[in-house]
């Protein structure tokens, strides 16, 4: 059998140095990367064949004929969650070795050659999706029976794209989203004839079929005069935002955003107030589709933090390195028992936090995690459900956000003002770079990963920089500064003085005056993005002077 789609990745496979990080890497205290054995399938099944290094070896050997395709291998193709944690961990290339795309390409080759997995699941789900417009095979005309009592307008600015799982299996999520939007009198509608976006089919390798679905859906959406499509489902969101543009031409005038991003905006406008009556401990599970794939990390955290009496306790693996819940990549339908074992491991991770709620932003995660609860005494909820439960009906108007201290912190404001007057500091960074500044009242706070006292991030655009308050979703690098260092830096009269101080604080840190970095990308990638030059300009390389002058420089402090 030929593998045209997989063969396209053959040369990328040679960049895999077989280091094994994608399976075995563990958090490095110094690098503060919250990794812990990234491949959750390998963690459950144990053998090398299930992690990226082993998968690449198997795929290579299939391509060069050392290994022959058999039924076991066809099954194996559907044991990958396509969660991307291996790729995120991999430092071989700027964006890591793209194992998920290799597995998808391999599945595509299998599908197009009529190679069935024995459970026949992929084809069964294709059949259901094409016939009933949802992968569950439920009647299409019942999609919104639980919500249709409401007369949705034919046209509105906002479209709530509910998705099949929220419509048929997790209706409370759809109802919660509906209730929240209604509460703020948002002008929104739904597509009465909403059909499956094809997320599951894509993951199985039915790319051509999904192209047709995408075209149909986009035509429908465009006809309704929608300006923004809002998704409570991370899977649908990723499909529209990341996969569709690879398949069809997308309209430029329609925005696609996740429900949490939309709500973040409304909360900041003071449209809602959420509260628990007593202190409540919550951990947030980053869905792979929303976090790693689409880069949305902050909005859900912002929303949880905005609930009065809520305490967000981060999970051991989180953000980019979050363990998958176990439901993705078609594994849940092909090998439900494996999905449950993965889910149970995630639940055990969450249980360490002694929480009341484990919250996610994807109906699929919610389904698998709640089925994996195994008697733990916390609840699994979707964020929409949590927010709708905590919606404080009695209060409206402007509210004070816990996180808003980032914005009002005076020193932070001074630093923002200083940097905005010196945009040339960022001139060496390539457009698209995101540099996060965090200010701490002590080195211990930084090292123990306590929240900073101030935070903002600088986005380098083509001809300008933008400074945004708060933490970034996905920065290239986090700069951590002591309050003392910032106080000194903003007093600098010239750029030279700024650089000298910056360099001294970084190279010769003292208790009150220090600067540190956390790299969120590989060093090599950062250098390519201009951070090397930035560092040089910022003064962290010693000047071309003799050693004695270093001592003078330290005295500036």
């Amino acid at each position, binding site marked *: 059998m030929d593998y045209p789609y997989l063969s396209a990745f053959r040369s990328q496979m040679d960049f895999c140095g077989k280091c094994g*990080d994608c399976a075995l890497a*563990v958090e490095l205290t110094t690098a503060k990367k919250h990794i812990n054995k990234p491949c959750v399938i390998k963690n459950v099944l144990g*053998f090398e064949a299930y992690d990226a290094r082993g998968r690449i070896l198997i795929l290579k050997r299939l391509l060069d004929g050392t290994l022959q395709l058999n039924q076991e291998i066809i099954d194996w193709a559907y044991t990958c969650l396509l969660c991307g944690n291996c790729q995120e961990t991999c430092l071989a290339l*700027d964006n890591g070795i793209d194992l998920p795309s290799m597995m998808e390409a391999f599945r595509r080759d299998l599908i197009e050659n009529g190679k069935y997995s024995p459970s026949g699941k992929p084809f069964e789900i294709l059949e259901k999706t094409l016939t009933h417009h949802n992968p569950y095979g439920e009647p299409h005309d019942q999609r919104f029976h639980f919500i249709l009592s409401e007369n949705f307008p034919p046209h509105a600015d906002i479209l709530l794209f509910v998705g099949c799982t929220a419509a048929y299996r997790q209706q409370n999520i759809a109802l919660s989203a509906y209730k929240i939007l209604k509460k703020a009198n948002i002008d929104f509608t739904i597509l009465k004839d909403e059909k499956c976006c094809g997320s599951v089919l894509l993951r199985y390798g039915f790319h051509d079929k999904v192209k047709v679905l995408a075209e149909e859906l986009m035509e429908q959406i465009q006809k309704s005069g929608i300006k923004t499509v809002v998704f409570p489902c991370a899977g649908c969101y990723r499909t529209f935002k990341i996969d569709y543009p690879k398949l069809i031409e997308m309209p430029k005038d329609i925005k696609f955003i996740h429900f949490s991003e939309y709500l973040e905006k409304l909360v900041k406008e003071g449209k809602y107030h959420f509260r628990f009556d007593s202190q409540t401990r919550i951990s947030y599970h980053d869905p792979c589709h929303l976090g790693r794939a689409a880069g949305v990390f902050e909005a859900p955290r912002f929303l949880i933090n905005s609930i009065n009496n809520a305490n967000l306790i981060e999970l051991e693996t989180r953000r980019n390195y979050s363990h998958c819940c176990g439901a993705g990549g078609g594994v849940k339908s092909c090998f439900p028992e494996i999905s449950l074992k993965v889910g149970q491991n995630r639940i055990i991770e969450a249980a360490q936090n002694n929480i009341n709620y484990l919250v996610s932003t994807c109906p699929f995660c919610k389904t698998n995690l709640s089925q994996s609860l195994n008697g733990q005494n916390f609840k699994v909820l979707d964020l929409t459900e949590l927010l709708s439960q905590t919606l404080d009906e009695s209060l409206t108007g402007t509210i004070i956000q816990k996180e808003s201290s980032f914005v009002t912190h005076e020193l932070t404001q001074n630093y923002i003002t200083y940097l905005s007057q010196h945009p040339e500091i960022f001139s060496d960074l390539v457009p698209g770079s995101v540099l996060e500044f965090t200010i701490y009242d002590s080195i211990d706070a930084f090292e123990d990963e306590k929240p900073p006292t101030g935070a903002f991030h600088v986005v380098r655009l083509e001809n300008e920089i933008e400074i945004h308050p708060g933490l970034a979703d996905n920065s290239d690098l986090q700069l951590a500064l002591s309050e003392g260092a910032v106080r000194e830096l903003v007093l600098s009269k010239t750029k030279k003085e700024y650089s000298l101080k910056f360099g001294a604080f970084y190279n010769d840190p003292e208790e009150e005056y220090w600067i540190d970095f956390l790299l969120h990308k590989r060093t*090599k990638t950062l250098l390519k993005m201009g951070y090397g030059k930035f560092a040089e300009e910022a003064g962290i390389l010693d000047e071309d002077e003799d050693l004695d002058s270093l001592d003078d420089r330290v005295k500036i402090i």
Partner: protein
Amino acid sequence: MILESMTQLALEKISTGIEKIVGPENYSKAKYILHSYAEDASPFPGNPPDFVVLPQNTNEISQLIQFAASHNLSIIPVGGRSGISGASIPRTHSSIMLDLTRMNKIISIDKEIMTVTVQAGITWAELIHKLAKEDLTVGFRGPYGGNAGTVGGSLSSNSIGIGASAYGGACDNVVSLEVVLADGSIIETGSGWKKELPETLSHFTRYCTFNDLTGIFLGDHGTLGVKTQATLKIYPIAEGTAFIDFGFTSIEDCSKLLHYLQVHKLVTEAVILGDTNSIELLASTYHDKYPQLTTIVGIIIEEYDQDIANRKKEICEKKAKQFNGKSIGTFLSKAHWLNKFNLVQSLFEEGFWYNTCHLRPINTLPNLIHQTHELFKKYDMKPNEINWIISALATDRCYCTGWITLFLKDPTKRPLLEKIWHELRELEISNNGVPYWTGLLWEDYVLQRVNPAFYETIQKIKNALDPYHIFHPGVFKFER
């Protein structure tokens, strides 16, 4: 895989036997699984084992060894298979590969004696991370591949890496081992020799009472037994750290500084980037700013107290100046130390890697680098899309690693690269170099040069401890 020619019945019998010991989920003979174990991180063509087993404890391993012996099967113990010498690739047929990565627990931390006892399959990254929670650390922190490299793998292959300038290599940090031998019996080395001993006292020293049995198993490449536990020395996490990078225009000057630092035990780590090309590859910021530099040394000092670290740094600065070194910043040393096991991987984008890692006295480094450059000139490396990195790490006293690695971008140039690779190894081993791990990478080069009396001695040890050559047959070309 000779088992293919076995009758289905015989194969089933073996499967059932293994299954009885480890349970159905912890072994496999599925072809695709075996193929995923065929290679390590080296470029050598692989060879799948016939079974893969995930043992959970020493007892299972003991039973598996006895089972293998009675069925004429061989045992290949492996850790993270992150080795880059081909050492974990099966050489013969009918093998059971023991993937030890599930034996990854910390058995005990002894704060009285300052040791940690671990299962052999724990990775260095996991060990360091867990010890850090107790404000403790190991001296040798692991090879640069310590995300996947296990303690057992490193001790079996003499790994050198992070922390080696002050603490020596992996094997220098061992107090005791638990090893399962070819007849399935289990021994503990060092002060663990007593039949019965209070738990707390069993592993406090390596050298006592008899000769050093621990050393026989260190660096054995899995040929003498399966290491199931190791006791390592531990230290409190340093309160004070200092970083500094020095640039040089001559490797001779840089080596003199390195030698001085090691003689006087001034640093925890001193790592060199040994030519302009390497500086450009790993520290382009420095290259852009100081294109004239041919060598950079990154220095890390960890001390109990910050003042001591600062003082040591001052001494380093003074000395560097005497040897014409220039303080250029802290970028390399910080990136090196803070990125720990995440540094080498970013070089993979240069193409697949062909290493020639070995050890040599510091004073022989300049000559090696000059000769290497001669070799590279002869073969027009860059036009042939072959890149390289030259680096070195001061080790223990006054020797260092020679880390010269080639990168193949264009697969059609493999024959040329292999020629250069071969000549480089010849050059290194003929000029004062000795490999630390051997494997397929070095075996032929080593066996040509080994003193017959030395080889005979280790061969006798092999035959005495493993008379039927159950463990990793073919390695070191031992003959029964």
